[in-house]
């Protein structure tokens, strides 16, 4: 590319751009060319729609559209009515044009707007209460017809007991019967999900479902509007809506099981045709028009290696409105999260805790003689005082009794609260067909249940689509996100002593004891001018200020030019930039800062005084992260009918991407936030080991750090589909991705990923004509190969650094050389059937898939003799077999009553079929770290429990059924283990019911996961924060082993990890993790039109409860989604959430 030519190209482009702006109004002249032989009229109509933009609306009663006709027509600029007159004359069809919609009806129905006899009047509105123009109203009895006007008003002649049917494009037909009292009939029509689902949006192209070969699932904003009410993350809203898609409680998505062992199993997120780098929080859920999930090999071969975990394609709203009117849409949401209930953890009572702690002290865990070397608790302090003779036995007993009265759960309000969220969303949309705009703004202020954690965010989104000429379309969009977050660490209640209160009655912070200097030695330091050695989580919370500010912008522009009929060139560009700056300021009241100051406060002989070698004062940590990236994509697509029987749909293109990340961290000492000053200190003397407060040498190595990555990709891709007679489709796609990463060994650089597929539209066959209840029946299949090398590299990689003492450059290996490394490959077969019956009342799809993965990459365990204990390597082969079922049923739809069910069911069986370097070791099996042949990737094993020994110690059986004590040589035989099952649910799904009646709608949504297993919670026999109330049942005296499985407190001598492992992972704790959750229950009410006074076109009030009810297979009140299934530990308690929402349209 000659540089000189660049400006000229741009000049030319700009000139043309301007010319087109002038010319656009001139170019609306229509050129129409039609030439059909023996083709169904329906097909001809579709072609007219494509060429002219006129949509046709007709009811099923119009049989004429199925008839095959011959039709030739050419025009340049002639009125469109010429075409329609010629086409419909003599075919017993009458038509009426309304805007760009053409209503067709049999001739016997007289389309008239004014009727003579009894007139039924009313307004037709859509599901958002906006007036619907151009709705075809037909009196089935009298065969008369009418059309609603721009205000949605209609009038038609009818008499009592006549049946009226309302039809409109993309809407479910509505039937009403006129009662004896003829009156106004206001009709609400609902979006026909099935009709909308007739297209598949892959992000690159929108293709008709009739021709799609791959497995795609679709959700529209109506359902997402319910599941995402007041949400800030659209992914959570997908929970239970799409078969084959698992959403966990954090909103992480997993599509069709895991096809990779590596941690990153997240699907690719594509927004309006571009994979985005910024987080889900930059997408305003209210802006989403619909979401399509691409699940099979066809998905990956369209989107490349990053799509191996599936693709989520999001289409955002693109503006436009009836009559060019501007529509405002305002929503206010108020949401409350209930304060977490820590009784979920089954914590021990203070009394039980202290009894246990006393036992550990008696067993020597804490020796009062050693009190000078170890920190101790209040209980320990009593024993120390007793040892020192400061208190008597009675004093000790009294002290313990006093402590037993305390429980710091009573001070839970210091750390947790009912958390409120306010959210306001305003969107404006409008414009004509030539220029559609959409703009939105959402503001969310969210407090977290953990005090000190809150964030505010604002997203602006502007989108404009301009039809510069019928052949040239320009789209522009800007999405910007601002987010301010405050984070603080809260007290978790998992560990810690229940009697250790945080504040006294006056609100003063109480010592938490366990810090580095024992309690009785602290005052000796204070005399010498040391700062407090006390640490208190509430004080820490109150004196830290950790804020982060995020700013992200996404800008995109796209140009579509129709080169010739059916051939479109598209050039699209996306630029993203984002900054996150974090300031963490901790003042002298935090233990962290006081500790550092104290450590290097030492006696200076020459000065004869204590001096601080470390700056005393607030520490400010600043981190800056920045990313920017762009994607440029150029495609040529063809969507063309070659002749009556042959049509082709293809895309070929290139994509260039760059993603750069950059960041650094800095630290400032004694930062004065008012004076804006900092201190310096002698960095090298502290980093090179300096004498500390105890007279030992200690070093302080904090150094600024930097990172920078620059990933670049170049891709070539093509996909094509050929359709014969609108019945049979063959498709194929391929893509090559190249990058500048270490991982791309030239050997594998040109290895394409590809797919092929076929589709048979059975419902279009002649022999199906007699089965009139079948609206759609399509069989489809795809096969393809995905590949993925991830971040692994066959080359040795070392990270740079500095030798701290000598400042010499230093390299440290992070990755060994491995010339045997191969890319991971997955072969995916998908077979599916799409169906719709009984006027689309029941529709859905069933898919079967089989994914076979080879050379799976994982951080495999290595024999340390090689120099590494683990490395990225090819470790195993695996299959995923599964079935996805989606069913939509419109069970009742008459007289204003609507009952819909959306049901989905997923089954996934995951099995490792081969392990290249198996480890057959019991401890490894229990830990679940390494894949095992013929087992799922996330398997769970148990030891066979042999009860407690006579001394109360854990025992298991070995393979010979002999009892093995924890003290004996380790039980390593895997044959002695019991295989329990899988930790990822093989069965999962959801169901959403929708009941509507006269403006009210009730929507319960259920989700379930079944067939997976867990280890029930057991108490830890230690003071390290894993204790539950079962601790009271521990073995305490001979004979207890007959009644309990909780071991004795271990003695102070060496305890191997066998003790804990044998006991915690024993088969007595096995349980089921199955559950059914009422994930949301939504009630909404649309105010009747008469109250809206022409100011509003719709007002909706909604109330929603989330996480209201749960059924679990286990009897221990464990919510399996808030739990470490394998090891039996609780994680943060589930909370209930309530939302109140008001939506105004005007």
């Amino acid at each position, binding site marked *: 590319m000659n540089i000189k030519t660049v400006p000229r190209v741009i000049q030319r482009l700009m000139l043309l751009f301007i010319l087109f702006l002038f010319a656009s109004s001139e170019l609306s002249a229509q050129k129409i060319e039609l030439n059909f032989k023996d083709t169904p009229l329906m097909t001809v109509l579709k072609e007219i729609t494509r060429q002219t933009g006129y949509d046709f609306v007709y009811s099923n009663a119009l049989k004429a559209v199925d008839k095959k006709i011959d039709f030739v027509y050419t025009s340049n600029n002639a009125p469109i009515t010429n075409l329609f007159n010629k086409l419909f004359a003599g075919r017993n069809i009458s038509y009426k044009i309304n805007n760009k919609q053409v209503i067709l009806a049999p001739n016997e129905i007289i389309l008239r707007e004014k009727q003579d006899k009894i007139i039924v009047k009313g307004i037709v509105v859509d599901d958002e209460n906006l007036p619907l123009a151009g709705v075809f109203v037909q009196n089935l009895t009298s065969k008369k017809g009418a059309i609603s006007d721009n205000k949605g008003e209609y009038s038609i002649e009818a008499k009592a007991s006549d049946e009226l049917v309302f039809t409109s494009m993309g809407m479910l037909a509505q039937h009403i019967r006129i009662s004896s009292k003829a009156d106004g009939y206001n009709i609400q029509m609902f979006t026909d999900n099935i009709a909308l689902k007739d297209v598949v949006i892959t992000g690159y192209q929108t293709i008709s479902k009739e021709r799609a070969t791959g497995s795609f699932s679709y959700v529209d904003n109506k359902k997402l509007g319910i599941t995402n009410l007041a949400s800030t993350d659209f992914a959570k809203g997908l929970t239970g809506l799409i078969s084959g898609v698992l959403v966990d409680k954090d909103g992480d998505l997993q599509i069709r099981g895991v096809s990779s062992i590596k941690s990153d199993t997240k699907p690719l997120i594509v927004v309006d045709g571009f994979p985005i780098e910024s987080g889900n929080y930059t997408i305003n859920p209210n802006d989403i028009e619909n979401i399509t999930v691409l699940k099979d090999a066809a998905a990956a071969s369209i989107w490349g290696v990053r799509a191996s975990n599936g693709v989520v394609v999001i289409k955002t709203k693109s503006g436009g409105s009836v009559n060019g009117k501007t529509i405002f849409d305002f929503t206010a949401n108020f949401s409350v999260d209930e304060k977490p209930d820590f009784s979920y953890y089954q914590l021990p009572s203070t009394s039980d805790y202290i009894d246990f702690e006393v036992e550990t002290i008696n067993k020597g865990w804490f020796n009062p003689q050693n009190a000078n070397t170890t920190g101790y608790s209040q209980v320990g302090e009593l024993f120390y005082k007793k040892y020192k003779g400061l208190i008597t036995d009675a004093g000790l007993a009294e002290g313990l009794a006093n402590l037993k009265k305390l429980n710091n759960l009573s001070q839970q309000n210091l750390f947790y609260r009912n958390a409120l969220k306010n959210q306001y969303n305003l969107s404006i949309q409008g414009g004509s067909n030539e220029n559609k705009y959409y703009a939105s703004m959402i503001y969310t202020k969210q407090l977290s249940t953990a005090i000190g954690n809150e964030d505010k965010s604002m997203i602006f989104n502007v989108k404009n689509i301009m039809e510069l000429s019928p052949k040239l379309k320009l789209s522009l969009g800007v999405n910007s996100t601002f987010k301010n977050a405050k984070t603080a660490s809260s007290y978790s209640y998992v560990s810690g002593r229940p009697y250790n209160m945080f504040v006294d009655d006056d609100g003063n912070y109480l010592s938490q004891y366990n810090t580095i200097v024992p309690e009785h030695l602290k005052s000796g330091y204070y005399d010498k001018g040391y700062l407090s050695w006390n640490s208190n989580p509430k004080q820490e919370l109150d004196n830290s200020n950790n804020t982060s500010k995020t700013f992200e912008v996404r800008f995109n522009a796209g140009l579509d030019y129709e080169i010739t009929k059916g051939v479109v060139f598209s050039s699209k560009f996306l630029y993203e930039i984002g900054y996150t700056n974090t300031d963490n300021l901790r003042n002298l009241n935090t233990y962290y800062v006081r500790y550092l100051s104290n450590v290097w406060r030492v006696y200076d002989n020459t000065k004869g005084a204590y001096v601080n070698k470390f700056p005393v004062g607030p520490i400010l940590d600043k981190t800056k992260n920045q990313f920017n990236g762009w994607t440029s994509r150029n495609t040529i697509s063809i969507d063309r009918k070659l002749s009556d029987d042959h049509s082709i749909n293809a895309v070929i293109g290139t994509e260039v991407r760059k993603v750069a990340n950059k960041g650094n961290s800095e630290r400032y000492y004694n930062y004065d936030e008012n004076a804006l000053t900092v201190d310096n200190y002698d960095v090298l003397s502290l980093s090179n080991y300096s004498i500390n407060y105890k007279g030992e040498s200690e070093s302080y190595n904090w150094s600024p750090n930097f990172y920078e990555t620059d990933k670049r990709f170049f891709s070539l891709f093509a996909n094509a589909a050929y359709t014969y007679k609108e019945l049979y489709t063959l498709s194929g796609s391929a893509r090559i991705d190249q990058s500048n990463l270490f991982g791309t060994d030239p050997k594998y650089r040109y290895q394409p990923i590809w797919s092929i597929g076929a589709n048979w539209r059975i419902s279009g066959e002649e022999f199906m004509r007699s089965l009139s209840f079948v609206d759609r029946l399509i069989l489809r299949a795809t096969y393809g190969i995905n590949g993925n090398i991830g971040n692994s590299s066959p080359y040795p990689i*070392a990270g740079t650094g500095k030798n701290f003492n000598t400042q010499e450059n230093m390299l*440290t290996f992070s990755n060994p050389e491995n010339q045997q490394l191969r890319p991971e490959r997955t072969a995916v077969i998908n077979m599916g059937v799409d169906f719709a019956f009984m006027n689309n009342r029941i529709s859905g799809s069933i898919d079967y898939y089989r994914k076979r993965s080879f050379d799976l990459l994982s951080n495999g365990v290595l024999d340390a003799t090689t120099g590494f204990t683990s490395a990225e390597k090819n470790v195993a082969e695996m299959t995923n077999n599964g079935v996805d079922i989606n069913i939509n049923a419109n069970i009742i739809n008459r007289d204003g009553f609507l009952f819909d069910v959306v049901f989905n069911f997923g089954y996934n069986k995951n099995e490792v079929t081969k392990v290249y370097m198996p480890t057959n070791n019991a401890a490894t099996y229990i830990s679940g770290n390494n894949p095992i042949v013929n087992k799922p990737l996330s398997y769970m094993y148990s030891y066979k429990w042999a009860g407690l020994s006579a001394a109360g110690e854990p025992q298991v059986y070995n393979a010979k059924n002999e009892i093995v004590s924890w003290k004996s040589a380790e039980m390593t035989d895997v044959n002695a283990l019991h295989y329990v099952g899988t930790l990822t649910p093989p069965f999962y799904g959801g169901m959403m019911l929708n009941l509507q009646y006269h403006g009210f709608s009730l929507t319960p949504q259920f989700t379930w996961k079944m067939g997976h297993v867990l280890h029930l919670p057991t108490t830890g026999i230690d003071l390290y924060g894993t204790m539950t109330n079962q601790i009271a049942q521990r073995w305490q005296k001979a004979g207890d082993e007959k009644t309990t499985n909780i071991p004795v407190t271990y003695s102070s001598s060496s305890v191997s990890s066998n003790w804990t492992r044998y006991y915690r992972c024993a088969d007595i704790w096995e349980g089921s993790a199955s559950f059914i959750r009422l994930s949301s229950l939504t009630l909404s009410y649309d105010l009747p039109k008469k109250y809206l006074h022409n100011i509003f076109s719709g007002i909706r009030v909604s109330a929603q409860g989330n996480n209201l009810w749960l059924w679990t297979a286990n009897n221990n009140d464990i919510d399996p989604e808030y739990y470490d299934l394998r090891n039996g530990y609780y994680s943060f308690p589930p909370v209930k959430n309530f939302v109140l929402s008001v939506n105004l349209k005007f």
Partner: protein
Amino acid sequence: MLNQLIKRQMKIDYKYKILLPLFVLLLASCNDFLDVKPKGVVTPTTVDDYYALLSSPLEMTRMSSNQLYFSDDIYLPEQFRASANSYPNGKASVRAYDFEDYLYDSNEEDPDWTIAYRTIYICNTILTGLETNTEPASSKKNIVKGEALVHRAYTYLTLVNEYANNYCSTSSTDLGVPMPLKPDINAQLARSTVKEVYDQIEKDLLESIAYLPDNSDYSYRPKKASAYGVLARMYLFMGNWEKAYEYSNMAYKTDNYIYDFNTYSWANPSNHAASVINGYPSSSTGKKDIVLHKYLRSVMSYFFVFLFSTDLVNQYDNGDLRFEFGSSPSDYSLIVLPNPGILDTKAVYDYNHAGITSAELLLIRAEALARLSKTQEAINDLNSLRKKRIKTSDYKDLTATTPSKALDLVLKERRVELAFGGMRLFDIKRLNVDGRNISIKHGNNILAPGDPKFVLPIPSKVISLNPNIKQNPR
């Protein structure tokens, strides 16, 4: 008019002049675009890269330490067990102290093994890479090769003494350690014999001399004397007294600085006692008596204290400043300990020196001389060391009339001078072959001569991952 113009423009320019060049532009620039190297990481291929690989103290100079607890120098009182057990490494140390069969569970790494083989991997990467490196010969290229050879040899010498029998008449059949000489994470090597390992160590060290400089900038960078020193230690372990003498003598000619402890004290900030005992100041700079820097990996965390065994305390003569500087009667909170303690940072900590010092060279030379019946020369070496270790007021020259008397004195001095440097177990193993009958008593547990547990167990995890490696008898 305008319409005409627009239509012509559209037909000619629009299609070809804008759209196609865009395509061409993207295709043409693809190779340059992708040719960007990541920052902060490299694939080491140049001499400079290799030099930088050898500059990491964590990778190149950290050594094993489990052998410390298989020695008669250490005492672990009952009251410290609990706190020791709460640390991952502490647990293995307690098991070692109790002479248990295995120090680690089958899912745990043995850091002694892991660290050593990481060092070897780095050396192998460099030595293999140099075979095909096309950079012109330079002193830096030589240095890189020499250093890699010395580090590999030193590491194998430690490994083979920790995990295999000491060098003796059966060494050509005794199992040594697996001996990778190329970086290959897919290899599943069996154990080489003890003799094969020693042969390789000797070969590497002799080869390294030609490449190494006379002096190096930092003590973690081997020089000629470092290679001589490791050779001297190796020949001593092999019982080759002539060569042990020859190489210790050669090394000591250039590296003979011995700190005079009499000029240091706890009270003197400019000559602080802590700066001459092991481990302080750190490692790489400043210390003049280090011939090759290596340190023992951290075994204990903060609160834990190891104590001198009574047996070791008895080895110190009156006025021995090594005891005064290196021990403490109480912990830092002034609680009196049952036996003198080695406070964490003063000895058993990250920076406890375990490499080769001038004092060790002197002791190797003295032992070789005594073994070669050069009694007076041996005693002279001892005295020149002791003069700088013992308070001037208490100091008296040693005397010996027979070589065996001299040898006894040398061995006693060796134990005291090299205490807690990780050498004691290796010495006990070779001295028991001489018939010195040294047992290690830890409470009621006794490791008597001939007990197979003098050889540490190969980590169970290694054996479970590599069936070609045979476990030591337990």
